[in-house]
């Protein structure tokens, strides 16, 4: 469970997120939605301890700023857009690096049989088993994203924080990624908190929504309860429901 109490956060002493209080139950998926610059990514980064914050962020009751990174990593993993890959690793090695927090430290610490099993299982779930020896730099964008998903799953966190990971992916791979994550959370012990641009994609993951605007939390709850036409129009500064229904009409006409 992740609890936020009056959290403000930002960059270089300049807050972008103000006074957010909310709670993410374990085993439940959530989406953060809002227009560009509303602070949703910043909030996510604060929740994972990547940037400093004021107020309280508690992971299962413990304050995040006092926790060692390994302990945070046991609870939370972050998955964001694919970064530039400077130095190529094989798919297997990349996924194995996700096991870092489980490994023994020191010059002779290293990979245990359990680590190997976990990595093989992650490769299998993401359909990468026969690519294990390929270099990540040789893969397509969609395959690459799957490698990073496997890397994140290998970490075995309770919660995955998604930071618009679908930005460079085509529609098939976007849906594929969301479906993998839904399957991962279906056991009721794992959860995903995702930042999305695309409301439809967010809805495919969950209908628990948190809406943000101008760095503040506007409202949270089930999509069909809070997302009225007027509310969405105000939040995104355009008639998004009208746009969606117009598109739907066009799609209905497709033979």
């Amino acid at each position, binding site marked *: 469970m992740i609890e936020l109490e009056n959290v403000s956060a930002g960059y270089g002493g300049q807050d972008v997120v103000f006074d957010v209080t909310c709670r993410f139950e374990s085993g439940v998926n959530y989406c953060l939605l809002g227009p560009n610059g509303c602070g949703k990514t910043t909030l996510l*980064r604060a929740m*994972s301890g990547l940037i400093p914050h004021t107020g309280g962020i508690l992971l299962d009751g413990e304050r995040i700023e006092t926790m060692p990174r*390994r302990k945070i990593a046991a609870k939370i993993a972050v998955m964001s857009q694919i*970064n530039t890959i400077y*130095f190529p*690793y094989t798919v297997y090695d990349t996924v194995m690096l996700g096991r*870092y*927090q489980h490994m023994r430290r020191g010059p002779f610490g290293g990979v245990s049989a359990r680590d190997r099993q976990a990595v093989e299982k992650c490769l299998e779930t993401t359909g990468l088993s026969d690519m294990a020896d390929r270099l990540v730099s040789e893969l397509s964008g969609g395959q690459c994203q799957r490698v990073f998903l496997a890397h994140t799953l290998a970490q075995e966190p309770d919660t995955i924080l998604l930071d618009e990971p679908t930005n460079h992916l085509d529609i098939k791979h976007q849906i594929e990624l969301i479906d993998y994550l839904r399957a991962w959370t279906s056991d009721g012990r794992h959860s995903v908190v995702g930042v999305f641009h695309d409301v439809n994609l967010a809805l495919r993951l969950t209908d628990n929504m948190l809406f943000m605007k101008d760095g503040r939390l506007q409202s949270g709850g089930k999509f069909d309860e809070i997302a009225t036409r007027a509310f969405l129009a105000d939040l995104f500064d355009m008639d998004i429901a009208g746009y969606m229904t117009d598109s739907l009409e066009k799609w209905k006409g497709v033979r």
Partner: protein
Amino acid sequence: MKSGVKALLSALFCILCLVLGVVIGSAGLSLADTFSILGYRLFGLPLPEHISNIAVSIMWTIRLPRVVAAFLVGAALSVSGAVMQSVLRNPLASSYTLGVSAGASLAAAAVILSGVTLPLLPSLTRPAAGFIGGLMTVFLAMGLAARFDRNMENVTIILTGMVLGLFVNAFLTILTALSGDHLRLLVFWQMGSFGDMKWHACGMVGAALAAGLLVFSCFSREMDLMTFGEEQALSAGVELKRVKTVLLLTATLLTGAAVSFAGIIGFVDLIVPHVTRRLFGSRHRATLPMNALLGGGFMVLADLIARTVMAPRELPVGAITALVGAPFFAWIYFRRRGGARRD
């Protein structure tokens, strides 16, 4: 090819370089003679009659320390270059581009010119000065980078390091121009040379290298993770700030020790890590020891060329590494460009 075979070939290359470095030269001693001298000096074995005392002395006090020092300096520079590239996530980063070399050589030059020595351990003076000089430049570069850019983006660090390096180099140039008697020594030393290497220099650089490799082997997974990005590393559980500081300090120690004895030798710390990665992949556990082997071998070879091509005149070894290195680097870089779909 299996990486075991490649490692074996690299070790053979390395041994070949060392043997060539020891055997080729003006004293005209064969490999067997060299071993006889080694046996004589190390284990007190009888010396064959045809080997003169002068030959022993040349081999033991000039040739051998020179070859060993070249190997260790090459290894230290390559390993520290590889670490800098990974930590700063930039294929063009090196102790050279971070200003470490410039700072270390300015401090070492100041020590040479002033004749100051540490009271108890005079032989430690130059490496200590080199380390402190390199460290100060790194701290200054980091401090300035933090002022320009609060997020300390790696590009800012590298740009600041380069600018600062050029600035510090200007002082070195001025110092050199005003140095009078020491001019030749300083100029030659700025271009890199193994001309007057003694055993104690080998000891110093060797100790720094051993310590560095030990530290790096403790952090090989952390470095692997850091090459994927700082936030990735943090989120996987790496105590980034601490690890980054330890790694940069250790890399600086290696460069500082190497530069303060051998002068500025460019390109090795840039090329060798790239070649090694191509051969052995990016995993630091495999690639760092191989960097030491290949970097050491390459440096021995470069020094061999520097002292034999126009013998008895000696060329600066930095010029050789650049002559070999620059085209080689371009080839590696553009071949990679052509082959990779994404960069």
